[in-house]
């Protein structure tokens, strides 16, 4: 597929990297020559230097032949205009980043339709939703949902004194009878799709799939269920903070936001009057202590600086805040902070790249079995996909143990109607099901890709 990406900021480059790995032909547009030459040195893409809404530039990039056009410049209006022109010039699908809350309220649907947008992405909103999911279930490091939240995958870090250290997965299932599946394990740099005799060690990061209630039960049995956060402190009055605070207030939590810019604080307190807003420098430990960080259930660092987020999160962790989440955009920092023991990290860049990848795969096989959901897990080394099974799928009604699955592939769940099935060897896939598949070290476009 031919994909055009406009704007090579942080999110733009993450998207470029993701879609290049999928084997698409990529054309990049940016108005800064130095950014363009940097990109052309590092990635195998064609670069065009010019304005995002300039017809001549778009023509040079051959927009008329593009299957997908992604506008992620810094300005919402420019993205919309650029997508509109691209659509009129013949691009098949257009994707725009629209982050301003004004555009994201009720008018979004109308605008999407009028501009012919296939997808509008709001990184801050997506990040806030992810943060919200984690705060609802603080025991997990990361949560991904499938099939309208009927089915979840939670990532748990096994603590040094974990009860399941040294247990094989088969033993684990015997010891803690619940309907779940351990589908991916990260140990150091390596990622495994574990079989029954795989032995878990403390320090592992494991991904468990089950329906939401079963997960609750399992965590309780394991004794690592933390109660849902009630008092949340957010550092940085960014857009993400705004969306997150709005969601948290919605379920009756107490939210405190700290930011050093008075203007930002005022804006938040005007739009969300129930939030406790404090204007002050969050890097000052005294201020945090004064505002009662030690008695908080959760601390979320959302300033624009990765470094600040990481360092202040360490301070929060030292004050025994049960759940500390930091926003880290740079991949390099994320893995560093992870190694240093900061366990919960959210990266808006990655979230957006996942959404775009999912969309691109869905376009690519609009005839085959559609990709409903796609998540990149464990630093991008594994992925989880949800497929809609089409009637013409060849392996319908064959039990899973008789399918010759490729290695490092696992069928983690089958959703039939409203029922989530954790499949055993005897289960079968039927047309109309949703199937959740985990894969390590390979990328899949179609459900039949799982057969070796």
């Amino acid at each position: 597929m031919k994909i055009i990406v406009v704007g090579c900021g942080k999110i733009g480059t993450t998207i470029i990297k993701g879609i290049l790995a999928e084997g698409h032909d990529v054309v990049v547009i940016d108005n800064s020559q130095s950014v363009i030459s940097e990109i052309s040195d590092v990635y195998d893409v064609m670069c065009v230097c010019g304005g995002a809404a300039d017809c001549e530039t778009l023509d040079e990039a051959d927009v008329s032949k593009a299957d997908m056009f992604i506008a992620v410049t810094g300005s919402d209006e420019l993205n919309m205009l650029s997508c509109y022109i691209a659509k009129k010039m013949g691009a098949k699908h257009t994707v725009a980043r629209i982050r301003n809350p004004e555009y994201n309220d009720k008018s979004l649907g109308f605008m999407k339709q009028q501009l012919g947008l296939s997808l509008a992405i709001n990184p801050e909103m997506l990040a806030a939703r992810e943060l919200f999911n984690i705060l609802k279930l603080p025991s997990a490091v990361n949560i991904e949902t499938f099939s309208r939240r009927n089915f979840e995958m939670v990532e748990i870090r096994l603590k040094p004194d974990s009860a399941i250290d040294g247990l094989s997965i088969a033993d684990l299932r015997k010891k803690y009878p619940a309907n779940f599946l351990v589908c991916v394990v990260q140990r150091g740099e390596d990622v495994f799709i574990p079989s029954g005799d795989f032995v878990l060690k403390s320090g592992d990061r494991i991904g468990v799939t089950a329906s939401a209630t079963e997960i609750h039960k399992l965590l309780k049995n394991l004794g690592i269920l933390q109660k849902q956060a009630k008092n949340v402190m957010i550092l940085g009055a960014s857009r993400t903070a705004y969306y997150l605070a709005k969601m948290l207030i919605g379920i009756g939590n107490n939210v405190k936001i700290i930011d050093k810019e008075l203007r930002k604080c005022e804006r938040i307190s005007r739009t969300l009057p129930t939030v406790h807003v404090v204007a002050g420098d969050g890097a000052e430990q005294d201020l945090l202590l004064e505002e009662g960080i030690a008695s908080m259930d959760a601390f979320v660092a959302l300033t624009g600086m990765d470094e600040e987020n990481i360092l202040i999160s360490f301070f929060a962790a030292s004050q025994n805040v049960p759940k500390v989440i930091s926003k880290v955009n740079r991949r390099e920092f994320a893995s560093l902070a992870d190694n240093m023991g900061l366990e919960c990290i959210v990266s808006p860049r990655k979230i957006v790249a996942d959404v775009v990848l999912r969309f691109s795969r869905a376009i690519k096989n609009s005839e085959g079995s559609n990709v409903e959901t796609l998540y990149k897990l464990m630093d991008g080394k594994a992925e989880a996909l949800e497929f809609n099974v089409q009637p013409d799928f060849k392996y319908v009604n064959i039990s899973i143990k008789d399918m010759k699955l490729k290695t490092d592939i696992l069928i983690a769940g089958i959703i039939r109607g409203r029922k989530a099935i954790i499949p055993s060897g005897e289960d079968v896939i039927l047309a109309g099901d949703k199937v959740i598949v985990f894969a390590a070290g390979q990328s899949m476009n179609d459900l039949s890709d799982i057969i070796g």
Partner: protein
Amino acid sequence: MNYKVIFNTIGRVAVAEAFLLLLPTAVSLIYGESCYMAFLLTAMFSFLLGVLLHLCFKPKNHVIYAKEGFAIVTLVWLGMSAIGAVPFVLCGDIPSYADAFFETVSGFTTTGASILRDVESLNHGTLFWRSFSHWVGGMGVLVFVMAIIPNVSDRSIHIMRAEMPGPVVGKIVPRVKDTAKILYLIYIALTAVEVVMLLCGGMPVFDSLVHSFGTAGTGGFGIKSDSIASYSPYHQWVIAIFMLLFGINFNLYYLLLIKRFRSVFRSTELWVYIAIAFVSSAIITLNVFPMYKNSSDAIRQSVFQVSSILTTTGYSTADFNLWPSLSKGIIFVLMFSGGCAGSTAGGLKISRTIMMFKMVGREFKRMLHPRTVSTVRFEGKTVEEQTLQGVTVYFAVYMLCILTTFLLICHEPFGMETNFTATVSCFNNVGPGLAGVGPMSSYADYSVLSKLVLSFAMLLGRLEIFPLLIALSPSTWTKK
């Protein structure tokens, strides 16, 4: 420095060269010549070496940074020439290895300067390999390897940049691999058309192949001692026109294919190239008119010589050594100009020359109006200051290298004109010079040392100086 990825890539190229060597083997067999063994043995050696390198160096990290790119290109070109020279020695056509190396470098760099006094007595296999090396070197070996190997690293643009001539190397499609493929397909198609057109005029199959290879790579190795002179006017016109065609930026052919005619006709470089060819031919025609009886001869001779030298091919239909000084002077200046960027031609490249003139114009304006702010525009786009600086620096290094080469060979007792034109001609990958190295003479009389210096000059010219100099400077190889 990632040695593994460097030697692994070199291994791949050695395997590719082994397969290329099978073609002259086949030609020798067809003509029943004994020298097929020489080619076959070299091919086997090259294959084994390649496989060995490929197996011994399994890179973990496939990333090629600029440094590795320069090193790969330099080592590949040196190694290829070293291997390519072996069959000449083995089959006895060129007994001395230094001579054979000169001949092969001259082949791969598409120079066409020869140390052979009598080409007509050579084996067909040898003649074929000489000309085929032009064809391979014209578009670049690594570009060829990139087009055929399965997984190309994201940063392989560095290799392409080091091997493709011109101030800015742009891709025509998003992927390096696909770009390389398209360029090679255009190259093959144009060559095939030329072969067919030569065949139609009654040229023997072998001759048409060899001459098409020489034209396509803008090389210039002939198979007759008087180059193209003994062929019919039709053949001379066909070759003259194809030489000009191969001097045009290949990206323009792609634009023609995808029907972007307007961008092609708006290309400043193309029009300047045509204008240079036209004006120089016209002046030379008037100048040499008294020497030839009729106007058609005069026009043909001058157009052929101009397109041959302008595109740095080096074929000749007349001994321009005997022409008046004005014509010789124009021919000499054309050696510097070269063809368009992104073509198979050598020399400075028209686009660089245009940019330099525009910069000079801007400096004039600045001297008159010191506060002027102005940008240089080329092909409808603003040229970055960095690119302009690159062009200026390139020109400076280019002149320095030519002068250094000249200093190294000026002790040879052939006179100033011979030595200097030999240097310029080799450096710009033209082939013939004036006086003692004119179109009807050869480089045979130079000493071994001078031949090596000139071989190096040819490589410098073909790879546009920097890759070679950077790869050979010690600081590239130390860990600093």
